[in-house]
Structures are given as C-alpha cells and as structure tokens.
C-alpha cells in the first residue's frame, strides 16, 4: 500500500497527481460509485416529476411560468462553468497551480451566477406568480427536483471554495490533487443533470 506523501514523490509531481497513490485512486473510484447512486437519486426525482407534471390542479402550469431566455442564460452559464473546470484540471496536469486556482475561482463565480438566477427565478414564481411548494403536485415536484439540483450546486460551490483555500495553504500535492479532480467530476455531473432538467422540465413544459 502506498502511503500518502505531503511532498511530491522524489521531489516531483507525477503527470496525473490524482492517481499517484492508492488513496487517490480509491477516492476517484469511490466518487464514481457515489455518482452512480446520485444518478438513481435524480432518476427517481425525474420519474416523480414526469408522473406529476400535469397535476397542476388550479395552479399555474409550466407554460404560464417558464421564461426561457432566463433559463437559457442560466444553462449557458452552467455549461461554461463545466468548461472552465476542464481548464482547471488541464492546468493541474501541467502543475500550474496559479492557473488552476484562477480557473477554479472562475468556475465558482459562474456557479454563483447560476445560483443567483435560480433564486431570482424561484422568487418570481413564489411572489408574483403565486406558485409555491404547496400549490399543486406539479409545484411540489418542480421545486423538489430543481431545488435538489440547486442544493447540489450550492454544495459544489462551498466545496470548491474550501479546495481553493487548501490550494493556497498546501499547494498541489498528491493529497490535494484527487480532491480537486473529484470535485471537477462532481461539477460535470451537476451540469449533465441540468441538461436533463432543462430538457425535461423547461423545454417539455413549454411544448405541451
């Protein structure tokens, strides 16, 4: 078993520092497994939403509510943040810590932008469209699915924020690298889920 090293192996960081130790490899593998579970979690939420999306009772329907330009902007911001997290990982593989930190900060800012748009969207619905958690089965399913995703984004922002702090304090090592790599996978996963939400919730809501 390889033990973790605070310093790089032989004073030099390997090309893929996230896979240099058994702990690192375990972390990456374990995280992929965790995402398998997350996929089931979101799958169940999607199934619930699809089952209840027409159950609006007397409340507003999807067509009354959704404003595609706003959602489109949020989608664009989130997709770009996925790209910037790829740049961050590329910088990590080149051992360029400065660039890595910068791209992570950009990613976090874009994530915050997305989250602000979502909060604004929810605020509009609740205050101006009379559409809250208790309005109808559709509203409950909508807020739960989209809100769960939003909570994942918020968690990702906090997590990557802490990792930026770690990078400042400890630099890039075989201990920090797997964490950053894993957080990037998580961020892509959130993005993929959002693509499904954009399609199933918003586009389909506008069509029917």
């Amino acid at each position, binding site marked *: *078993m390889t*033990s*973790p090293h*605070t310093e790089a192996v032989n004073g030099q960081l390997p090309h893929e520092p996230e896979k240099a130790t*058994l702990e690192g*490899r*375990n972390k990456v*593998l*374990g995280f992929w*497994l*965790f995402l*398998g*579970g*997350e996929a*089931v*979690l979101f799958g*169940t*939420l999607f*199934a*619930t939403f699809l*089952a*209840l999306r027409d*159950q*609006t*009772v007397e409340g507003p329907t999807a067509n009354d509510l959704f404003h595609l330009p706003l959602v489109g902007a949020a989608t664009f911001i989130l997709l770009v943040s996925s790209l910037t997290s790829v740049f961050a990982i590329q910088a990590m593989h080149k051992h360029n810590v400065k660039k890595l930190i910068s791209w992570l900060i950009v990613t976090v800012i874009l994530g915050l932008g997305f989250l602000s748009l979502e909060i604004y969207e929810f605020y509009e619905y609740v205050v101006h469209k009379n559409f809250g*958690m*208790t*309005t*109808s*089965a*559709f*509203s*409950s*399913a909508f807020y*739960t699915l989209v809100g769960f995703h939003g909570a994942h984004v918020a968690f990702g922002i906090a997590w990557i924020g*802490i*990792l930026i*702090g*770690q990078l400042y*304090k*400890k630099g890039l090592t075989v*201990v920090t690298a797997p*964490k950053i790599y894993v957080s990037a996978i998580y961020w892509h996963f959130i993005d993929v889920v959002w693509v499904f939400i954009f399609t199933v919730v918003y586009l389909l809501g506008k069509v029917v």
Partner: protein
Amino acid sequence: MDWITTVDHKKIAILYLMAGALFFGIGGIEAILIRIQLMEPYNQIVSTQIFNELITMHGTTMIFLGVMPIIFAFMNAILPLQIGARDVAFPFLNALGFWTFLFGGILLNLSWLMGGAPDAGWTSYVPLASTAYSDTHGVDFYTIGLQIAGLGTLIGGINFLATIITMRAPGMSFMRMPMFAWTTFITSAMILFAFPAITVGLVLLTFDRILGANFFSIEGGGNPVLWQHIFWIFGHPEVYILILPAFGIISEVIPTFSRKRLFGYSSMVFATILIAFLGFMVWAHHMFTTGLGTIANALFSISTMLIAVPTGIKIFNWLFTMWGGQIRFTTANLYAIGFLPTFVMGGVTGVMLASAPADFQFHDTYFVVAHFHYVIVGGLVLGIFAGLTYWWPKMFGRLLNETLGKITFWFFIIGFHLTFFVQHFLGLLGMQRRVATYAPDQGLDELNYISTIGALLMGVGVILFLINVVITFRKPADAPNDPWEDGRTLEWSIPSPPPEHNFTQIPLVRGLDAWWKEKMAGNTKMTPAEPLGPIHMPSATPLPFLMSVGIFIAGLGFMFSNDEFGNGFMNFLFNNYIVVIIGLLITFGSMAARSLFDDHGWHIDPEELEDKGAKI
C-alpha cells in the same frame, strides 16, 4: 472513548454487531408482544393504536436496524480478511457510516418516548402515512430516522465496492474470491442503486408532512401509487440485499464442514449476479392489487418466477457440496443445513405469491406474513446464526460453547416452524395481517395459540444464545488461527482475533480457497507477496461521531419545526430552525475540519512487528 474514535474495520464490525443486537432485541420484544396480543381472540393486552405502532416498528426495526447492521458487521469483520486487505478503502467513511446508522436508529426508536411511534406499517403507505391519518410525529421519526440510517448504509456499500475493486491481494482475481466476498460485492452494488430511491421517497414524504407538499395527496394532484412504486423499487432489491449475504455465509460454512470445495463455484457467482439483476426487475409484484392492469401483472409475475432458477441453482450446488463430503455437524453447520429446507419452503410460497391471480387471494393475509418470515427469519436469521457461530472465534478469539449452541439451534428452529408454518394456514383461512385482533370460532383460535407458543420458544433460543455469549466471554481468548481446522479462506491464516493491521505481509493468492490450497501443499503459512516493511495505518478520529451527532440534532430540529411548545424559548429555538442550524453547523464544521487539517496516519515499523512475534 477508544470505541468512539476508532476507524479499525474490526472494531467497527463489533460496534455494528452490538448495535444490531440491541435493535434485534427491541424488534424481538415487539414481535413477542404482537404474538401475545394475537394469542387469543379479542385479546386486549395492547390497544389497537399501540398494536399498529408495534407492527410498524417491528418490521422497520428488524429490516433496517436489526439485520442490516449484523450483515454489515460480518462484512466489516471478514471481508478485508478474505480478500487479503489491510483495511477497507475508506476507514474514515466506514466509521461515519456506522455512526449515522446508529443515530438514525436511535432517532427512530426515540419515537416510543416522544409522543407515539410510527403507525402506518413498515411500508408507510400513503395516505395512511399522511398527516390526515397519522397525526403524531411517528411517521416523521420514520422518515427522518430512516433517512439518516440509510445514509450510513449507502456509505458502507460504496466503501465495500471500492475495497473489493482496488484492494484484493496479489493473485486474488475476481474468480478466486470467496463466495462471501462475492455476495458482499453484489449486495453493495444493489445498495448503491436501491437506497437512493428510498432516499427520494422519504424526502417526498417528509415534504408532504412537514412542508405541506402534494406528492401523495389526491386533493393536491398527488398520486399515492407513486409512493408504492418508489418504495418497492427500493424495497424489493432490499430483500436480496438482505438474503444474498446469507447465501454467502452458507457458501462458506457448508464447504468448510463438508471438507469439500464449493460445488459449481462459477455458477454460484453468476447465479448471484442474476438474482441481483432480476431483483430490480420485479418490484411491482408487491402491487398486483393496485390495478396496474393484466399486462403489467403478467410481466412482473413471470420475471418474479424467473428468480427461482438462479436460486434453485444455488440450492442444488449446496446439496452437491455436501454430497460425498465428510460432513461435521457443528452448530454453525446445523444452522446452515437447517437453512436449506426452510429457505426452499419460503421460495415455494414465493412462487405461489408471484402468480398474480393467486395473489389476489393471498394479498394482505397471514400467508404473506408466513412467506416473508420463512425467507427472512428462516433464511437470513439462520444464516446470521451460522455466521455468528462460524466467525465468532475469528472476531473474538473464543469459540462459542458447542453443546449450548446445539440446544439453542433446536429451540430456535422448532420455535420458528411452530410460529410460521401454521401462519400459512391462518392466511388461507382468511386471517388478515396488520389487524389487532380476530373473532373467535373461525378456525383461527388454535393455530394462533400454537404460533404464539412458537414465538416464545424462539425467544428462549435467542436468550440461550446470549447466555452462550456471556459464558464464552468469561473464558480466555485462546482460539487458534484455524479453530475449525478445515478453514479454506484467507481469514483462517492469521491469528484470532487478527492484529490491527490484519496481514503483516500481504499474502500471495495461488488459487480458489487460498488457505486450503497452501495447507494441501503442506505449508503452515501463506506465501507473502511483499517484503516486510512499515505498514501505514489511519488515525483514530472523533469527527465521524460528531458529524452524526450534528445530523441527529438537525433531524430532531426539523421534525419539530412546526410545533407549538408551551415554552416560549423552545418555540423560538425550534420554529426559527435554530436547532436545525446548530446541528448542521456541527456536521459541516466537522466536514470542514476534516478537509482543512490533513491527517496522514501513522506507521507500524517492521522491528515492532517482529517484537510482537508476528506470525505469517
């Protein structure tokens, strides 16, 4: 303190075992109370409300808090040893999984003391579980307690998967893994794909009850059948999550005490995978009477019956393993042999229930109760007793008393069949499950009386087992490495109980039943796969415990957030979510501490290992 901070998988296994025993005892007492209430017609030992709470808590406790942790105890104690690993992949998460499980279980059981236990049945069907029909906090304890406990199970599943994938000893290919390791692997994969579904289901029910959402309320456009789908897409795989590890245990015990290798090893592996796969395909067989339609019923009926094929393969393989073997009737083997006919009977009634038209007759009668108790008690609990007796010396260094063990076995198995065999007939005679009493002279009186006597005998069996444990702990821990002398797998090649680092040198695996192979080659120890060197160990930490305490506090806070307390200060604390926030701060604070302060663990030096007279 040592136990609160430990990250050693063998100690966590003992914690799981103790917690499981505690909850198993609570669930058992609930079961005995149910049987005493049903002993005679029009009995009024408990009120109907208490009866509803008893049946709900008995099912919930046994499934989620009783047998799951005991299975996890075996997985933790034995799996790393069987695959030649020094530890699990994530020791920290392992501890976290245990503590979240324990605090979830405690939260659920606090309901007895805090204004009413859940009373909607262990399946918590809506609208019974809605605030309209269940207005105490009982179901909130169910949703939030199980949520927290389920988190621990999911963490454990991921941990075992990663451990098996990356940490097998050199030479231990997948097709050389012991069957128990295989069933752990498949079970963990099932946990990974089944538990998130119930996570969502519990969230939806919590939101319905606490935030006033409309997922399951018909007035709000919700759909109660949706709950059933979500519950059973988790719930059916859960049955196999429970039984597959028992299959694994039986597949270890029977070859050991038959002095033969397991017959049809590779077919056993593929049968396990097939059962897991089919287990996800059949959830709607719990819902034949909800009106899914004939096509859906037919498909789910056929897919359910298909499971009999891989299960039959397993049964015949066990029989062929014994065939021509030198069978030793030790206590562990008695349980394993007792398992075979019992489980077959549970399987046969399973095929009967899988036939949709017949199920309309059997539905919600004691026939169903008899069926699943034959599977879960006659299958799983006998498997657990076999495993306990078999691995006790490895876990604790002491052999359980064989004579007392055999007496226990006979009490338990006779009591079991007395209790549940007659329930088949009670069901066919029309006795409904989940009802607090019944009218006399319908032909139900004698059979119910017999059933209760059987339950009491099972209770005596469990008490005898506990006496056996106490007697055993008064003796010195002097069990040899391989106390059964016919041990086949790697755990029997190291001392009992194993040292903290398990293997001083990781062994080289040269075939299926690695330790047996070395013994047959005349070796007294495994060939090491690596030179003696320093061993890296993870440090003990209180953080997993603190994180779980935080989640526990937050759960309680959330549950009472809408309540009106007599006391202004309490209202302020709960209604403003201050308790929730304090709990979450403890949890996230511990997570941040874990993240910011690296702990690199410690090393055991080779010199130190030789001082201790390291074996291998």
